[in-house]
């Protein structure tokens, strides 16, 4: 019997992986060949999807991107025994794009069957949880703190300090909330973790629960991710059956339960306090801080809120040790960052590397430039609330502090590339329009400022009093930055200001224009 891997990740399926799997099964059947198809996650080289792998005596051999039309020729070339074919990529582990990466969080994604606990365990899964079960709460928190792991959702707050606050806060009940409301355009790592290695996220949440004394966890997943929701639901059932979740975890006295809440299509619910409101079933209106969610969070109880990637990295921190994790990275940005290359890019996907690689390396060495083949004009880093940077800033080091110094922010690690055809005034206007559409409405700078901002940029685009309207726009940006309650209104000016700063020609040369 030959094992053939065809990714079940929704991105791979979006370009025909299901048809490929069906065609391989049917042709193998017709040819009397014994083939078992495993729907793994995606390895993250999304430009190669659907990436079909065959397990041979010399390891996994990859072919891609495969379409259903090419299955016949693959069989003719004896691909089941690693036969040569125009789509052959050699050994999967030796594909340079993947081999050069430093996979920690994404170590298993694309390798294992996402819903096989035995696969998970044989690739190092549950090692971290087993260690944590033998440790005192205080020591787990200490190890996470010592690792330097910071929140991957965007704010970069040290995870250990947040956990310590919850541990030290008295409460009859405490919660672990996983923020899986990955709404930023250009980001898809949370989705790929949930679809490709769901037990890792559950393990990370369970360790967090043991560390701070919480027995309940909630994963808040956006409704735009139906496949991730289904995958996590199945994983929770399987983990409960296996005993790594639920009552008496792995035979110990500890218990931890996880349930899923699905979002309602609201971007602002990715903001942690709006998310809590939404989990409580209310309108996703941002809360004032203090009190911090760590003190008064979900249903008023002490709550750890971490992003998917943060929690998913915890098992590796526990099993590999704090020092091994801390050895990677630069300055206060330690460990690895899961960069996501998207937009107009030739080779998009997941690139996990230690902090400190350059923007240019990610875009040129991994991304291979634009998909359209035209020259690069801008890259937006960190989602809709992140800055647009020009090609001249490609030397910037990709870590929290350097990006901040360069006038940007790392956010959730998404990079969106634009070619020379982009109109930066239109992009700036979109930033304001998106804020107007998604503002929760609680604070005035965000609710009204975004609408006025879009109107003002429209006037600039129409060529009306460009200098005066630019001054007005910058003033408005200042009010929104300083006066908004949360990052929605507070950071919307970032893409607007960066577009004005780096691409002034797109705003200034519109005199008399009617576009």
């Amino acid at each position: 019997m030959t094992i053939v891997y065809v990714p079940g990740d929704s991105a791979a399926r979006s370009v025909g992986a299901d048809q490929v799997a069906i065609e391989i099964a049917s042709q193998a059947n017709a040819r009397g060949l014994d083939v078992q198809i495993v729907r793994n996650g995606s390895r993250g080289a999304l430009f190669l999807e659907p990436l079909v792998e065959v397990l041979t005596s010399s390891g996994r051999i990859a072919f891609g991107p495969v379409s259903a039309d090419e299955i016949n020729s693959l069989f003719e070339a004896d691909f089941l025994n690693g036969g040569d074919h125009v789509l052959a990529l050699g050994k999967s582990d030796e594909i340079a794009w993947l081999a050069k990466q430093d996979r920690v969080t994404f170590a298993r994604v694309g390798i294992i069957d996402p819903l096989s606990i035995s696969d998970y365990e044989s690739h190092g899964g549950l090692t971290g949880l087993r260690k944590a079960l033998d440790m005192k709460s205080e020591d787990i928190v200490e190890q996470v703190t010592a690792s330097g792991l910071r929140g991957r959702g965007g704010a970069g707050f040290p995870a250990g300090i947040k956990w310590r606050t919850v541990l030290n806060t008295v409460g009859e009940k405490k919660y672990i909330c996983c923020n899986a409301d990955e709404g930023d355009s250009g980001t898809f790592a949370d989705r790929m973790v949930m679809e490709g290695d769901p037990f890792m996220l559950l393990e990370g949440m369970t360790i967090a629960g043991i560390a701070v004394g919480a027995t309940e966890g909630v994963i808040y997943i956006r409704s735009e991710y139906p496949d991730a929701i289904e995958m996590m639901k199945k994983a929770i059932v399987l983990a409960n059956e296996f005993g790594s979740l639920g009552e008496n975890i792995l035979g110990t006295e500890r218990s931890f339960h996880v349930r899923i809440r699905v979002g309602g299509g609201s971007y602002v619910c990715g903001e942690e306090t709006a998310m809590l409101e939404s989990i409580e079933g209310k309108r996703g209106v941002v809360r004032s801080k203090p009190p911090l969610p760590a003190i008064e969070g979900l249903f008023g109880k002490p709550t750890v809120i971490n992003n998917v990637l943060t929690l998913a990295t915890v098992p590796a921190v526990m099993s590999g040790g704090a020092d091994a994790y801390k050895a990677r990275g630069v300055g206060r940005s330690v460990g690895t960052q899961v960069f996501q290359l998207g937009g107009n890019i030739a080779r998009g996907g997941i690139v996990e590397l230690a902090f400190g690689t350059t923007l240019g390396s990610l875009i040129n060495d991994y991304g291979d430039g634009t998909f359209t083949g035209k020259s690069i004009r801008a890259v937006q880093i960190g989602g809709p609330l992140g800055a647009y940077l020009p090609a001249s800033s490609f030397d910037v080091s990709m870590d929290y502090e350097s990006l901040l110094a360069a006038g940007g922010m790392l956010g959730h690690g998404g990079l969106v590339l634009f070619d020379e055809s982009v109109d930066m005034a239109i992009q700036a206007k979109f930033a304001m329009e998106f804020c107007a559409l998604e503002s929760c409405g609680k604070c005035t700078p965000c609710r009204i400022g975004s609408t006025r901002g879009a109107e003002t940029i429209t006037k600039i685009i129409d060529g009306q009093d460009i200098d005066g309207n630019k001054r007005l726009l910058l003033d408005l940006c200042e009010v929104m930055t300083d006066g908004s309650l949360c990052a929605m209104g507070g950071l919307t000016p970032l893409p607007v200001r960066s577009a004005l700063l780096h691409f002034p020609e797109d705003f200034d040369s519109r005199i008399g224009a009617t576009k």
Partner: protein
Amino acid sequence: MQFPAWSQERALDVIARTSGEPGPVLVTLQGIQEYFGYVPDGAVALIASACNVSRADVHGVLTFYHDLRTELPRKVQIKICVAEACQSMGARDVAESARKSVIDNLDVEISNAYCLGNCALAPAASVDGKLRGRVSVKSLVKEISQL
């Protein structure tokens, strides 16, 4: 997608599944929409009563979330991502042209989405909840015609 017609009895069954959970309003509205395809007028008071909140509270939640709707959806639901990553690959034009191409087809509803998590294979869309990558007006129109 075909949905059952409004029935108070069925609605009460659906509401009872979640109304006892902590923070039940949003999840109960989602349950009603999953069952009936939308949130019928008559459901609001029933949810308010079952969840022990005011009708205004339920209305507030119903009108906050983009996903929740108060009218029956058309048979085919297309969402085209028009967020930045897809914009960089021409998604605005795809969305506009796709709307024009199916304007006479009353079975098809096209709405904007803001990120479907397929940013490396932009432009992205979803057809009845199934993710699609590298879409064009041609590929979408072809898929609609085959449904």
